[in-house]
Structure formats: C-alpha cells, structure tokens
C-alpha cells in the first residue's frame, strides 16, 4: 500500500514537470457527444448523451440491400444486420447510432494485421516503402475500391425524392449514409464534374489530389464492417477476413522503390552490415566496345560474394543496374521457415520466431 502511495505521488511529480501541452497535444473530448462516465477508468460507464438508438434487428431484416451485402460478404449468422447497417452510417445526429466506434476498432485491427504481415514477411523494407505498402493495403483509396467492389451503394436521394418514388424506408438502411440533405440537393449530376465541399477544398494537396468525402465514407464503412466482425465473431474470424479481403491483394513492392543515390546507399549499407570486404563494382562481360550496340554486364561484389548484377548499354547503366539489383535483393528479402514455407506470423498458433528483425534504414 505504502509502495503504491509512493508511486502515485511519483506520477504526480512527473506530470508537474511537463509543460502542459507545449509540444504534445493531449486528446480532448468531443463536447458535442456530451459523454458522461462514473469514473474515468470505468470504460463500461461511458455514455454519449445524444439521442441515438440502434436499428432494431426486425427492421434491418426487411432491407434487401443489407441482406444482400451480408450474404455477398459471407458474413457469419451471428453478425447482425443492425450492426451491418450501423457500419454504413456516418451521420452523427440523425437518431441512429453511427459507425465511429466500429471504424476505430476496425482501423486498429487492420493496422495490426497488415503491419504484422509486412514486418515479418518483409523485415528489411525501408520505412518509407513500408509505410507506402501499409497505405496500399489499407489506405483510403484502397478501401474505397474494396467498398465499391463489395457493392455498397451511397444514399444520394433526398427525402422528397424518396417520397415521390415511393421508396421503402428500409432501403436506406442498407446504403452508405454520409451526406446530409443539403449536400444531396447540391450534388452535381454531370459526369466527370465534381463539386467540392469546403471540407474537401481544404484537403486539396499541392499535387492537386484530394480525398473525397465519398472515398473516406467507403473506407470508413469497410473498416467498420471489420470492426463489427470482431464484435460478433472474435479475433480469429476477423484475422481470417482481413487475410482474405485485404492481404490477399497483390502488392508490387518491387515497383515502390526509388533510389536517388544507389551506390552511396549500398556502400553505407555494407558499412552498417559490417561487411569485412569493400564493395566493388566489376565488369563481368561485354559485347565489345566497338560493336554496333555495345552491352555490358556489371556486378556488385563484396570480396568474392556477388551482391547483384546488371546489364546496360553503357558502363554507367550496367553499374547502376547492378547496384540497384543488389539493394533490391537485400530489401525485398523474405524469410522462410525450415520446411520452406513462409515464416509464421506472431498471431498464428504455435508461433516460432524464425525470421529477422529489421535493423533500420541507412542515412545517405
């Protein structure tokens, strides 16, 4: 008890030594949710006091779009249609519970399983390529495509249009809901013309690209569906879903590299790896310098070990190709287990560490 008291006092003293939020910004609550709780550490007591309720399962069952999506994704029976409908709702203040929590959970699950896969299967990827690969697997644009391929539709019609076309209200529960009534009215119907909202305009980057609200909404729905699967079926089923829908996509890692100074990078890498011999580029073969189309074969060597080989129509080209080949062979290394299969992942049963841990990139 005395020890615990001392520790708590120590926490207090540590906090006092920190300048409040001068560099690090501590998260602040979203006041619009009016969250209340009994105690800050009693997570079960957290409650958002805005008027929301979950869609009754009996109502959700009458939405053909929801039933079709559930069946198309081969979701288990335990995955309720009301959760699926909640995963498609991004609107905060319309009475129905939105997908904020499911999205957050889905994102952490995706982040872990995608990172685990890359860190174990490609331990030597340079960090910029690693991050790019993560983005290629679970970035907004990728999840947008996945969401579209799942056949999720956007609820674009206004209440008046729904009324005039006598559309049953159950239809909208199976659609992606993120547009408010005013946004639906102002939507441009011209193909190829997009009217950006203020929010989208502010997200336009220097290269003139931006993330549309629609893309973000689709991505959020995909993440939420994954979060929902965890909620109903647990982690093993979620992992399997992520592997079949996200990690099964082919990623051309070898096309993600761009070297500005490859020779310098290889030399630096050799230094980091403490190679005993110097890195040398040697000419292995050539067709003859006076031949009409001279070709050269160069190799990057460390002592008698060949690190890479390249063919080029000039000495410089052959050298660069040899060096790049050596770098790519190193960075794209993927360990295999003793029986020749890919190494197991930390989340697999009977996991045994057989791979390597990446030591980090070199500064050039």
């Amino acid at each position, binding site marked *: 008890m005395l020890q615990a008291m001392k*520790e*708590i006092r*120590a*926490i207090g003293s*540590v*906090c006092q030594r*920190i*300048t*409040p939020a*001068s*560099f*690090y910004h*501590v*998260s*602040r*609550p979203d006041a619009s949710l009016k*969250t209340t709780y009994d105690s*800050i*550490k009693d*997570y*079960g007591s*957290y409650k*958002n006091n805005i008027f929301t*309720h*979950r869609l009754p399962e009996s109502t959700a069952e009458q939405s053909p779009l929801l039933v079709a999506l559930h069946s198309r994704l081969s979701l288990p029976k335990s995955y309720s249609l009301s959760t699926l409908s909640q995963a498609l709702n991004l609107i905060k203040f319309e009475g129905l*519970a939105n997908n*904020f*929590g499911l999205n*957050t*959970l889905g994102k*952490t*699950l995706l*982040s*872990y399983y995608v*990172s685990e896969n890359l*860190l174990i299967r490609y331990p030597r990827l340079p*960090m910029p390529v*690693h991050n790019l690969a993560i983005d290629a697997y679970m970035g907004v644009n990728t999840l947008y495509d996945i969401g579209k391929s799942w056949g999720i539709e956007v609820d674009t019609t206004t209440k008046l249009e729904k009324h005039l076309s006598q559309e049953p209200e159950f239809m909208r529960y199976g659609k992606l809901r993120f547009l408010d009534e005013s946004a639906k009215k102002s939507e441009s119907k011209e193909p190829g013309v997009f009217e950006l909202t203020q929010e989208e305009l502010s997200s336009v980057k220097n290269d003139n690209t931006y993330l549309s609200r629609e893309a973000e909404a689709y991505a959020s729905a995909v993440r939420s569906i994954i979060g*929902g699967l965890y*909620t109903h079926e647990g982690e093993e089923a979620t992992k399997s879903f992520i592997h079949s829908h996200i990690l099964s996509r082919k990623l051309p890692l070898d096309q993600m590299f761009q070297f500005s100074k490859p*020779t310098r990078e290889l030399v630096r890498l*050799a230094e*980091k790896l403490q190679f005993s*011999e110097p890195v*040398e*580029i*040697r000419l*292995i*073969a050539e067709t003859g310098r006076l031949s009409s189309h001279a070709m050269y074969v160069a190799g990057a060597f460390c002592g008698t070990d060949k690190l890479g080989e390249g063919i080029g129509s000039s*000495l410089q080209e052959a*050298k660069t190709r040899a060096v790049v080949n050596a770098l790519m062979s190193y960075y794209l290394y993927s360990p295999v287990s003793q029986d020749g299969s890919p190494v197991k992942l*930390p*989340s*697999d049963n009977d*996991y045994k*560490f057989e791979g390597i*841990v990446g030591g*980090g990139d*070199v*500064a050039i």
Partner: protein
Amino acid sequence: MNVRKIAFSGHNVVRRFTTSPLAQIYLHKGSRIPGLKKDPEEVFTSYKGQKYGISEENLGHIKKFLNDKYKISDDLILQILTHKSFGNGIKPYNEKLSAMGSKILNLFCAKHVIEQPTNNENAISGKNFDSLGSPMSKELSGRMSLGLFAQLNKLNTVMFWKSYNHELSFEASGEMKVSAQMVYALIGAVTFVHGKRVAEEFIREKLFNSNTSIEDITSEVVQKYGSN
C-alpha cells in the same frame, strides 16, 4: 569468366574501403568538420557517457524488467535501446520494433476499453463503443503516457539517442518521444520473439497490472491536460 575491375567516373568505393596496414587515418573528436571521419569512441557513446555495446550496465535494467518469462536476446535488447538518431543510424535501431509494438498496444487498448462490463443500451454484443474515441482511450497508448511509464520504471536510464539539445526538458528535448518509442519497441520485441498472445500477457502484466499502471498515468495526464 574473366573478371576485372573497372573505374567509373566519380566512383571512389574501392579507395574508401581499402584498408592497408600502412594507411594512416585521422579520427576527429569534438564538433563535426565536413570531410573528417569522427572517432567511433566518441560517436558511439551516449550523451550520458554510456558506451554502446552489450554489457550488464547497459542491458541489466531491461533484463530485470522482462524477467525470464519474456526473455529476449541481448542483441535485441541493445536494438530496443538504440534510436535512429544515434550514430547516424549505422547501428541496428528500434524503428521496426516500435512499429510492431505500437500497433499491438493500440489493438490491446481498444479491446481492453470496449470489453469492460457495461449497461449502455447502444453496446453491441456487450461491447461499449462509446468509450472508444474518448481522450482516455486515445491516450492509453499515447506517447506521453508511455514516456512517463518509461521514466517511472527507470527503463530510459540507458538509451542510445541524440537530441538537438539534451539540456531541454523531458518533453522538449524529445526524451519523452524517444522513451515512448523504446517502450513500444520493447513490446514489439516481445511480440517478435514470443508471439502475440504472450505479448498481450506482457502488456496486461507489466503495463496495466503493475504499481505504476499505464491507466493511472494516463488518467492523470488526461485530467490535467486534456480537459476543455
């Protein structure tokens, strides 16, 4: 096959790495001068004067914290303690380990907060999603909590890193960030070596059920700096 050396313009790889017993190399100490090679003795010493390498002084405190249950190799412990800012990133550093550690900690914390017993009528399968997104749940795996955790448990007494100014405060010098990254790396290393299930046990036992619980630290931080 006839192999011979070729000279490329501007290519000094061979010269740079040829080590002759007769070659005299000047190793410079003190402030950096472009073109002069720095003395490794000085480069590979932390600002506190700890020499880089596997030794009981450097690794003992981490070994004690991990105990036999979560044992990992000495090389990996040294990598955990090394930040990419140290020695220009030439030694194996902890970036990949901390990438793994931060992801598993985020996942653990998200599961931990939603799985507490609840009466919330919007809960799904007994999981309360209203707690996700609250400052407490966000900061549980945040850099400030982890940095303070490292400091309270004296895990950051030996770290190989370089700040632009070591004289500044715990937060301003970057020590908090580097300490947090070191704790992420520690969790990541346990995940790499022992797998996810053991790593989650490690987080529960060492971070949540210890005297200096990460929850106590985070609630203190959130109440002090996170209110509107």
